[in-house]
């Protein structure tokens, strides 16, 4: 790298990183979030504050480190170069308490049965050095020296057992990053996405306020005064205490605890796109239209058909005339032979606690239909007379009534983001089952392997039918590869079968896992139910299978 840059290398000395995911104490955080690194540096800075008796140079050096932190927090989020990892299974450890009160307390260690469960997520790193890289950052020599010195003070990042060594490596030793902050003007990148906590201007001040060292010192000062004063002076001190801390003083009152800081600002990271990569696109345009549920009962993915049928009915009745690309029918009433608009459900799947409930629905359009044409056809449905998004009611029969509205929040839930469904990946797996375009001829009871092979061929055809190449690997199962998605067959926790035309056979439906020889741009909708939400696929990454 020849451009100006600064990098901080973090070596995990035990070979493990031990930091708890901010969202779940049963998961380890990896890669280390930039905000976590910043908080560790702030802690190191404050813990090494010179004392009044130290030489003036020490104080000056310390202030430079503070300036370096303020300079760092102004920078954009860093890129990361981090290795893969193998997390240890998370177990609950019971820690003997120390702050027992009450008549039943037991003090001898063997009798401390009221132990508190804790978890210490830990992960083994393939390479124990992680790099944080700020491109185009060119600090003053004084800032660079201060950052170097401050880095050397880091003891840990994460749990106290997550010992580290940190330094500023020369540019030629810094590897290329494998995680970069996603460009917000470009919705889609290749492969996985991560949401990492990052800091910005004002973070240092916020952390100091949350720690409350000054507040704690003031508490002790006033308490000591109250304890030592008498009479009027004591009463005045008590009044000052109550005014400053909002509660009356009494003996034994504990000083205010530091408030655990919460860094809620996050940055989406993606993997850099290798140059010259081939991106396959299907007939569906990646610019999808997303609706979030506005009101209505909590429904799961298994209600896909009812909800999308209601939405389709609403579109047909409100948007008059409805073009062939939206209705899927020619003027004669015959089925359209061209690709047409598809509706699909947006469910909560993939994460550890995903339960498949629906957050909204979406529309995918044929790539050849311009945004203007889409607007012309659907405008009356989506917007009121003032051009404001309006609520759309969907009557769902026995399921009740849903209302939906165009999603336009800056940071909606992941399931309501276009990149979740229309991003790029070389590996996809179904969320709703793929309805096979034809019935396999092989009897699975007699020739299971032959049947699987034939089903894979049908799935491959389905990919080609929407303009994608044949995948290099296909796997099928009745269980989805995405946690939270119902099984492919009717039954408890399963999808109902897609209703067929009168007299037509019920077609099998199956979950699929697909790997292509290059990245595919979503949305990926496959099989006979693709226009009504069945056969919806989502990018899949290693470790996601339940």
């Amino acid at each position, binding site marked *: 790298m020849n451009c100006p840059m600064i990098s901080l*290398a973090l*070596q995990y*000395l*035990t*070979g*493990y990183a031990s930091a708890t995911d901010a969202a779940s104490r049963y998961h380890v955080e990896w890669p280390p979030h930039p905000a976590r690194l910043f908080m560790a540096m702030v802690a*190191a800075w404050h*813990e*090494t504050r010179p*004392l009044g*008796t*130290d030489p003036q140079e020490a104080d000056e050096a310390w202030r430079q480190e503070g300036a370096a932190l303020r300079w760092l927090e102004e920078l954009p989020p860093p890129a990361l170069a981090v290795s893969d990892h*193998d*997390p*240890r*299974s998370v*177990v*609950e*450890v*019971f*820690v*003997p308490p*120390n*702050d*027992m009160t009450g008549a039943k*307390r*037991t*003090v*001898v*260690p063997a*009798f*401390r049965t009221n132990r508190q*469960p804790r978890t*210490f997520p*830990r*992960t*083994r790193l*393939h390479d124990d050095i992680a790099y944080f890289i700020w491109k185009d950052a060119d600090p003053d020599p004084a800032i660079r020296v201060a950052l170097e010195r401050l880095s*050397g*003070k*880091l*003891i*840990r990042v994460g749990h*106290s*057992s997550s*010992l580290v*060594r940190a*330094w500023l*490596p020369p540019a030629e*030793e810094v590897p290329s990053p494998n995680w970069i902050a996603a460009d917000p003007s470009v919705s889609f990148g290749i492969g996985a996405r991560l949401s990492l906590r990052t800091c910005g201007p004002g973070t240092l001040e916020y952390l100091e306020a949350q720690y409350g*060292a000054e507040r*704690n010192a003031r508490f*002790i000062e006033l308490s000591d005064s109250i304890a030592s004063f008498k009479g009027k002076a004591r009463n005045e001190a008590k009044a000052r205490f109550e005014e400053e801390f909002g509660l009356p003083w009494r003996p034994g009152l*504990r*000083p*205010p*605890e*530091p408030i655990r800081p919460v860094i809620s600002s996050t940055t989406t990271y993606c993997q850099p796109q290798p140059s010259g990569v081939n991106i396959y696109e299907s007939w569906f345009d990646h610019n999808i239209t997303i609706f979030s549920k506005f009101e209505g009962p909590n429904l799961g993915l298994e209600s896909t058909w009812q909800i999308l049928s209601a939405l389709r009915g609403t579109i047909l009745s409100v948007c008059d005339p409805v073009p062939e690309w939206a209705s899927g029918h020619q003027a004669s009433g015959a089925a359209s032979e061209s690709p047409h608009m598809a509706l699909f459900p947006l469910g909560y799947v993939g994460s550890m606690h995903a339960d498949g409930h629906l957050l909204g629905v979406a529309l995918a359009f044929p790539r050849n239909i311009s945004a203007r044409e889409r607007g012309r056809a659907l405008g009356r449905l989506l917007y009121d007379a003032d051009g404001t998004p309006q609520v759309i009611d969907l009557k769902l029969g026995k399921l009740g009534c849903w209302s939906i509205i165009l999603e336009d929040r800056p940071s909606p839930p992941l399931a309501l983001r276009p990149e979740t469904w229309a991003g790029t990946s070389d590996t996809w797996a179904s969320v709703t089952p793929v309805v096979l375009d034809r019935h396999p001829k092989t009897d699975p009871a007699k020739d299971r392997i032959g049947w699987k092979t034939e089903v894979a061929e049908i799935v491959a055809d389905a990919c080609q039918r929407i303009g994608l190449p044949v995948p290099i690997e296909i796997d099928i199962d009745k269980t989805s590869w995405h946690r939270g998605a119902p099984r492919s067959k009717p039954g408890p926790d399963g999808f109902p079968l897609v209703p067929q035309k009168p007299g037509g056979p019920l077609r099998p439906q199956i979950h699929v896992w697909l790997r292509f020889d290059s990245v595919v741009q979503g949305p990926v909708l496959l099989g006979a139910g693709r226009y009504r939400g069945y056969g919806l696929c989502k990018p899949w990454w290693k470790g996601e299978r339940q």
Partner: protein
Amino acid sequence: MKPQLDLSTVKAAVRGKAAAFRCRAVLQPAGGEGDKVFPPTYAGAVYAQEERRVRDQEGNWTSVPCVLLDSVQSQANRFEEALQQAIDGGSLAGVVPVIEVDFSGANLLAEVGRVTSLEAPHRASDAILRDGLLDGVPFRQSVEGAKLDEASLANATPLYEICPTALIFGIWDSTGPKGGLGAKFQRSLVSEIVGINAKAGVKTGSRIDPLQIRAAAKVIKSKDGYVLAKDDKQKGAVSPSEVNHGNIPPDISVGGVTIDLAEQTCVLSLPALRRLRFPLAGGRFDPEVDAAGRTVLAALALASAALAFENGLDLRSRCLLWPSEPMVWQLLEIPGKPPREFTIGGEEAVILLKQAVEEAESLGLKWRREPLRLTPSPQLVALLRRSQEIAAAETSETE
């Protein structure tokens, strides 16, 4: 032949910019390579497992299953045990400070003996010590104990004087007068043992009764034991197994693992020690004194690891590990540069520690060589006696 770690190397490391001393030691089951070992089980009767990338014999990367054999917290307890044994056994008696609460003569249901700051879960800030008396005064209100209220990174002297091990293994005085902002010292020594290429085994549990007492011979439990039931329909009649007689059929369940080897990784963080300041009387600071105090703690940490290592690691029933080779410490100085390597045995580590202590003392930083002996308060004794009665009653109810 690697050089032996000496005081001058430790001093230079502490004063310089080196990040850590690190040791990666290979251990094998005491029963020999391939013998089964029993990892700790956690809630749900599970082991803590992971995959680890290793090179196979052809040099290709492959993943092997691994299992945690001894956690960071448990290893710290073992190192403290090793120091306590050395204090009791003589090599560190009169060398390393420790705080004791002596329960002997307290008229308890079961003797507790002595609990020290090396044995109490929360070290010097543990409730046991908090409820102890020093010359009749509650410990934390005594002259020695009250000093701990002022302990901080900038004033590690009070802890150094009476409980220096807390500065190595970590301590948080969150129940003291400063609450959450009470003395908090992060651990500087981290060690963990992992079994590599762990394959699950089975374990059996059974009892063959030499008296061949039959299950049909019912008994009635009583306060003093049991009496024979008149017949098996008598009210309260139970099987003799309820009073621990009779055969217990074998119960085959998953248990234990075989491993290729166990790896102990031990890291002593030097920046953690460099955080500590040691003011002398009158609040006077001297960088030489600070360096000397940090050197003592480094030596104490290394000694604890070396002594625990040489004792053999008796982690739990059927999990005794022995080192395959001597302990080798790397000094991590310049990133990217191969670290220098040193050896040091338990005896040599004790000598190094004594030298460091003497140097610190010559500069005015002294610690308490004799144990600080507390007596349990009457309330603590009463509480303990009552706890033992409750525990005994609970045990007899479940039998």
